[in-house]
């Protein structure tokens, strides 16, 4: 287990400043905590597009394809003329294919989210501030020795409520 340092902040601007200064000092693996999705923090950390969208697209297209394939196959498996319609009547299969698109797309999105954000993860974190889900922001840096001291200095400059050493999980 590697060591690190966690700072809890009361203010958003202090958090963002701390992140930016840490980045300037060459720290790479910065982890930030927030009680809600805060785009200023995301911006400071330099996030691009989330690959969740690939999961959604692939899932949705798989759903469309399997919706049409399944209805077509079952209709030809035992051909019965119903309501004077062709055995394979595409317009009638559109609602099924549509519902499968949504179903597969949604489930793939959730699977993508779980894989990308490493959930579920129920093992308790060693350093974690329960106030992060209430009103505090946090910054965590994995470092040791002199780098840890350097990070502590930068974090301290922004007046954190609390500084704690330890290890946060993944």
């Amino acid at each position, binding site marked *: 287990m590697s060591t690190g340092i966690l700072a809890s902040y009361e203010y958003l601007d202090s958090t963002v400043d701390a992140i930016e200064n840490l980045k300037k000092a060459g720290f790479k693996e910065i982890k930030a905590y927030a*009680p809600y999705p805060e785009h200023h923090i995301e911006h400071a950390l330099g996030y691009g597009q989330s690959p969740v969208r690939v999961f959604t697209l692939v899932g949705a297209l798989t759903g469309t394809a399997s919706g049409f394939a399944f209805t077509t196959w079952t209709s030809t498996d035992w051909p019965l003329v119903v309501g004077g319609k062709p055995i394979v009547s595409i317009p009638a299969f559109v609602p099924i294919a549509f519902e499968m698109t949504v179903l597969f797309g949604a489930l793939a999105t959730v699977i993508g989210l779980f894989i990308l954000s490493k959930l579920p993860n129920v093992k308790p974190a060693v350093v974690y501030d329960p106030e992060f889900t209430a009103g505090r922001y946090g910054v965590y840096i994995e470092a040791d020795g002199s780098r840890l001291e350097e990070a502590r200095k930068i974090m301290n400059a922004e007046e954190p409520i609390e500084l704690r050493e330890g290890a946060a999980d993944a």
Partner: protein
Amino acid sequence: MAVGTQERGALTHPDVTRLDDVNRDVLKALSKPGKGWWMLLGIAAAGIGLFLTAWGWQIYRGIGVSGLTSPVGWGVYITTFVFWVGIAHSGTLISAILFLFRAPWRQSIYRAAEAMTVFAVMTAGLFPLIHVGRLWHAYWLIPYPNSRFLWPNFKSPLVWDVFAVTTYFTVSAVFFYLGTIPDVAAARDRAIGFRKKLYTIMSLGWQGTDRQWHHFGKAYIFLAALATPLVLSVHSVVSWDFAMAIVPGWHATIFAPYFVAGAIFSGVAMVITLTVPMRKIFGLEAYLTTKHYDAMAKLCLFTSMIVFYAYLSEFFLAWYSGEEIERASFWNRLFGTYWWATWIMLVCNGFVPIMFWFKRVRHSIPALFVISIFVNIGMWFERYVIVVTSLSHEYEPFAWGIYRPSITEMSILIGSFCWFGFWFLLFTRLIPPIAIQELKEVLPPPMRKQKEAQS
């Protein structure tokens, strides 16, 4: 660092100043329940008892204990099925469609609305099972390789409906659960004992890290984008259960949009009915403000106008088509055996919501509550009118007939409300009934520099 606080819509909740105030106020709802809650839960449980007894009786004696008979083969069960599916719709509207449109008033309502969706679909889903009579054959609806080498008829709207409703239930449940994860994590961080363990598992170890929020936000947008066409499709498919048949009064192209508008209309009314007592009991007045109710009343008014327009156009087209049978069917609606049901529908859905034109009514919570109940009743009767009067008065006069709901059917109808209420009551005590994290997004973020400048 420049963070503009003006861009945040802080004005929606002027009484909430600190981020952790939200946790304090909302999580209070999860504390020890009062006597009133236990009483309501008891009533709901008793209603479920009635429901199960009536259903058990029907399974034991056969479908004959219901009033269903030729020519009216669809009665209270299908009416109530459509009613509950309709109720579900506004939940997804508020949580997904208004999310994509960035409506500033959805944050504090959407959790309750979404829970309502999930429980309403759960309730609706029971009715086809009750209606088929021989419950033990219900699994025939599902396509699976069987010894009879038969597959469901995918050209039938009833099979589309199976797919639409199961997809809707799955997606809305997933969407609901996903939205609760950060809030359940917030509850976990304040809880002790058993609840702590429960919330730890339910929140999947959510910590609110940058990485989690980043993917969560994107996944949530995609789910909303998928749920939006889904919600429109589900009630369209339900309407095609009717519109694809050549029964006079059903066979109309207007049915899909007419049903979707009616669904949202009834659903918004149900959200008002549910949140007014919830707001009062849990003291959430700072979060569910008159601004929110005003917006919901406007939505109700708008959809009421669409629905009323659909009624009028149905009557007009029956006359204008010159079709004798179509004309007779609609004449029968207004002045036939079931005239009272039609007039309840017209008054409750068309005339009572006219009150929403007045700002004083929209801003009066008791008035809203009463009108929303009228709308709920009216929308149930709308489905009753569509299902029963149409079937009772088809083409041949010798095949006309009267349908009377039996006590078994009415018990199941009442029981379905209790079943729904039971889950909703559990929800208010188990999951934060207001979306904590989304509310914080619209609150002004705490700023050190601003504070220093002020002092």
